[in-house]
């Protein structure tokens, strides 16, 4: 029953969220603030993790391929496929759920317990629309860029790793990156990133918006936002893979 009530509350708040903003100019300003907070400020962690994961995948592939009949360009090919299909869209989204999701939930939750949301409401402003919509929009527009960035950096990380370790020649690795190139894979990856961005921003916004109590509850809401977003990301990863790749 508790889950159903929460799901119902989520739908009601999303209906409030997806209304026309009270003032376009204010919405755009808020959107750019959220581009910075949710997107630009996440570039560092995305670059760091993608670079290392790309390198680690390439090294592990090279280590596992010791059969002379298996062509070495498969190291590059496998690294590319893993980065494009799963690591960048899904693992990066899980990491962003931790970073961005907790930030959204705690920001909005703190506004709730300090009566800032009530202040918005009594001014005649739709608080859900004013606070959550720009975050969802910013996440859905910026996360695909982060994912493309993650793929590029991950592949560069793989190239760097094989160059440094010498396990595979850079020519073989680059051949692998170019082998069986399918633009649909990128499309699939971007679709996933947009869906995951919606999940992260909307669930975290909802958890923050519905906080009751004080600072302890804000912390709990933040944790719940990350956990719920992560679970939904994994479930929707399976659903989208089934829908788009089979």
């Amino acid at each position, binding site marked *: 029953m508790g889950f159903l009530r929460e799901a119902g509350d989520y739908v009601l708040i999303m209906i409030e969220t997806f209304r026309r903003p009270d003032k376009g*100019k204010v919405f755009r300003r808020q959107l750019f603030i959220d581009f910075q907070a949710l997107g630009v400020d996440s570039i560092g962690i995305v670059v760091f993790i993608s670079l290392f994961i790309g390198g680690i995948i390439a090294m592990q592939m090279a280590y596992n391929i010791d059969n002379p009949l298996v062509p070495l360009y498969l190291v590059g090919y496998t690294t590319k496929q893993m980065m494009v299909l799963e690591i960048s869209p899904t693992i990066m989204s899980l990491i962003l759920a931790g970073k961005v999701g907790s930030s959204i939930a705690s920001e909005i939750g703190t506004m709730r317990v300090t*009566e*800032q949301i009530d202040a918005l*409401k*009594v*001014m005649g402003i739709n608080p859900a629309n004013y606070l959550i919509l720009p975050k969802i929009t910013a996440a859905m527009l910026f996360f695909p860029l982060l994912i493309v960035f993650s793929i590029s950096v991950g592949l560069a990380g793989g190239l760097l790793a094989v160059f440094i370790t010498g396990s595979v020649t850079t020519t073989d690795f680059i051949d692998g990156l170019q082998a069986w190139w399918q633009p649909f894979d990128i499309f699939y990856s971007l679709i996933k990133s947009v869906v995951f961005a919606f999940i992260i921003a909307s669930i975290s916004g909802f958890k923050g918006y519905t906080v009751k109590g004080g600072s302890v509850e804000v912390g709990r809401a933040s944790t719940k936002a990350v956990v719920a977003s992560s679970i939904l990301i994994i479930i929707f990863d399976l659903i989208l893979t089934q829908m788009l790749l089979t």
Partner: protein
Amino acid sequence: MIEVINISKSFGGEKILKDISTTFDKGKTNLIIGQSGSGKTVLMKCCIGLFDVDEGKVDFDGRCFSGLKEKKKKETRKEMGVLFQGGALFDSYTVEENVMFPLNMFTKMSFEEKLERVNDVLNHVKLPNANLKFPAELSGGMVKRVAIARAIAMNPKYLFCDEPNSGLDPKTAEVIDELISELTEKFQMTTVINTHDMNSVLQIGQKIAFINKGELWWEGDNKEILVTDNKELNDFVFSTELTRRIKQRL
């Protein structure tokens, strides 16, 4: 004038407000007093529409507010200013941006006009040079004054203040009381203040409603409250030895 007509409100089966009727007069500081848990905050939140009433209604100058749908409440809300207990200033905005916020949302004024209005209201609350400060850099009294400035930025007809003196020293509390009283008279607002500060009650209580256990127990002004024989009210107002001695001397 705001009319509260037979309102009741329950939470989880417990009746918090029981059939309360009162009026808050224009151009006066109307005080709601009562012990913690008596229902005065719930009453105020019912008035400003943060809680829906179970029974009864709240009229603003004859216009029914409590029964309206959220969209229609918006118009009346633009005529309200609310000062929350903690100020409820937006942390990431400067004082200027906080006060300018309702003007940005609801007016088509140019930036220069809005800035002029912001400086005007900041002068009214005696904070002329605080424009670029953030809420975290302000003292408790300054936060309350900025919150008042934001509440009156749109020239509201109705001003609601929830515990405006909580957490303030007696001197600063007096300054806030005087400020609210002065602004009420100057702009002829209907001001409703939720408090349990006896200094405020005696100083600015032009109309006082005493709420006890969710019921309206007594109504009067700051002169009548000193001579009332209402036991519950006397127990509340003269609850300390010092205030009892003062009453004996009156």
